[in-house]
């Protein structure tokens, strides 16, 4: 199956682990990723905050570029990019501008993998079920909100990651902070705010007995993973919670050889937990 793929800027940098795991898992599932030709940045938080025209114009150029490929599905791993692309489509429709009938369906990556047919494919390829792994699924903001943009119907209690974890043989523990904001957009300019929001998430994850947090957003991942030391120091508590991409979990359960390499890029080391659980040598 060929699909159009819009990686977004951070998958070429901070989120290389996410990018590599997506490529690895898609290859295993025979999904061929065709990158949007000469794609540009979606503008992210900065554009929608201070340059509205650009926040529509930048993703609109990507849609135009994507139209060069014949595929009917477009996979977007970054929830921010996903959100901005869908906003551009929505606003162009709203303003009555012609929308391209050739436009592919824009998918949030986790939702694509959680669709029924894909879940069956996932279960069929599991070689090492994630037995004994208790995680919480963390969805953050952008893949589900606002629902008129994302098309989400279960936006207060999303299920995609939970379904994927279950298909892989793991256990996702219920918790109340599935969709609470991690403050990613403020982590650099107001780290005090970011620390407070993330600290709250760690605390709750621990309270419900999670061993790791599963994410599908590279901003959430970086935010929860890279500053964990600092937040621990600030709160005088140790959390040591690995922040794992759902695609890495798929790699683990499929027994893909690249998985260990992806996981070694994390700041909060997930390897001890996975070794102890017998999920990785």
């Amino acid at each position, binding site marked *: 199956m060929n699909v159009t793929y819009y990686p977004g800027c951070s998958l*070429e*940098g901070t989120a290389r682990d996410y990018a590599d795991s997506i490529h690895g898992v898609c290859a295993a599932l025979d999904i061929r990723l065709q990158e949007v030709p000469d794609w540009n940045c979606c*503008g992210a938080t900065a554009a929608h905050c201070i340059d*509205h025209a650009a926040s529509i114009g930048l993703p609109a150029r990507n849609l135009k570029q994507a139209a060069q490929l014949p595929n009917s599905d477009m996979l977007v791993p970054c929830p921010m990019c996903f959100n901005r692309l869908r906003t551009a489509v929505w606003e162009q429709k709203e303003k009555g501008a012609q929308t391209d009938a050739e436009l592919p369906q824009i998918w949030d990556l986790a939702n694509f993998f959680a669709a029924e047919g894909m879940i069956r494919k996932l279960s069929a390829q599991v070689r090492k079920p994630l037995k004994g792994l208790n995680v919480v699924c963390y969805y953050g903001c952008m893949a589900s909100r606002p629902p008129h943009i994302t098309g989400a119907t279960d936006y207060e209690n999303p299920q995609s990651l939970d379904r994927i974890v279950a298909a892989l043989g793991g256990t996702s523990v219920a918790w109340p902070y599935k969709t609470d904001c991690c403050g990613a*957009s*403020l982590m650099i300019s*107001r780290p005090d*705010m970011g620390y407070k929001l993330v600290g709250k998430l760690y605390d709750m994850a621990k309270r419900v007995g999670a061993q790791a947090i599963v994410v599908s957003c590279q901003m959430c991942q970086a935010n929860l993973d890279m500053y964990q030391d600092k937040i621990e120091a600030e709160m005088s508590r140790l959390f040591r919670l690995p922040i794992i991409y759902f695609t890495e979990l798929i790699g683990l359960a499929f027994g893909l050889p690249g998985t260990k390499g992806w996981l070694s890029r994390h700041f909060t080391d997930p390897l001890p937990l996975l070794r102890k659980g017998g999920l990785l040598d």
Partner: protein
Amino acid sequence: MQQTGLSPDFGFLERAEAAGPFNAAECFQCRKCTNGCPATFAMDLYPDQVIRLAILGRKEEVLHSKTIWVCASCETCSTRCPNGVRIAELMDYFKELAVRLGIPSPEPAVTALHQTFLENVRYTGRVFEGALLPVFLLRSGQLGSKLEKGTWRDEVKLGWQMFRKGRLALVPKFIQGKGEISSILRPSK
């Protein structure tokens, strides 16, 4: 001109709605937006108060507030508002307006980061993370204070760790359509 409660600018909301529409006039002050907002601890006005003041034409209070800048854009408010008020989008409109009117930001670091980010995109077409933080630190004037307090070491350490773990690209990727990008972005001042 400093606006007082008695000299409201009633055109304020009208002009905003023409740019939106944000449905602000539908607000019946139930405070559902504020009750779910994760950032109230850093705000000087609650989200429902921003909406209320906008309706009342109290432009200066809105545009000078910290709230519009420390809003985390999480969209919880817009999602939950029973009247379809697009609160988060309205906050964005206010930020952009404040920048256009040259109102000094009460959260200079937040504003500087957005500006640095877009300049970065203008230059390469994609974000080059390797330059984002250093340029931001220079631009926001935080470099000086970090040097003074010695906290610059934290930044260097983080950068080094990212590099070691292969999470920092060292060269920017220039796209072919760079010319298109600079015509999409508003000219920088």
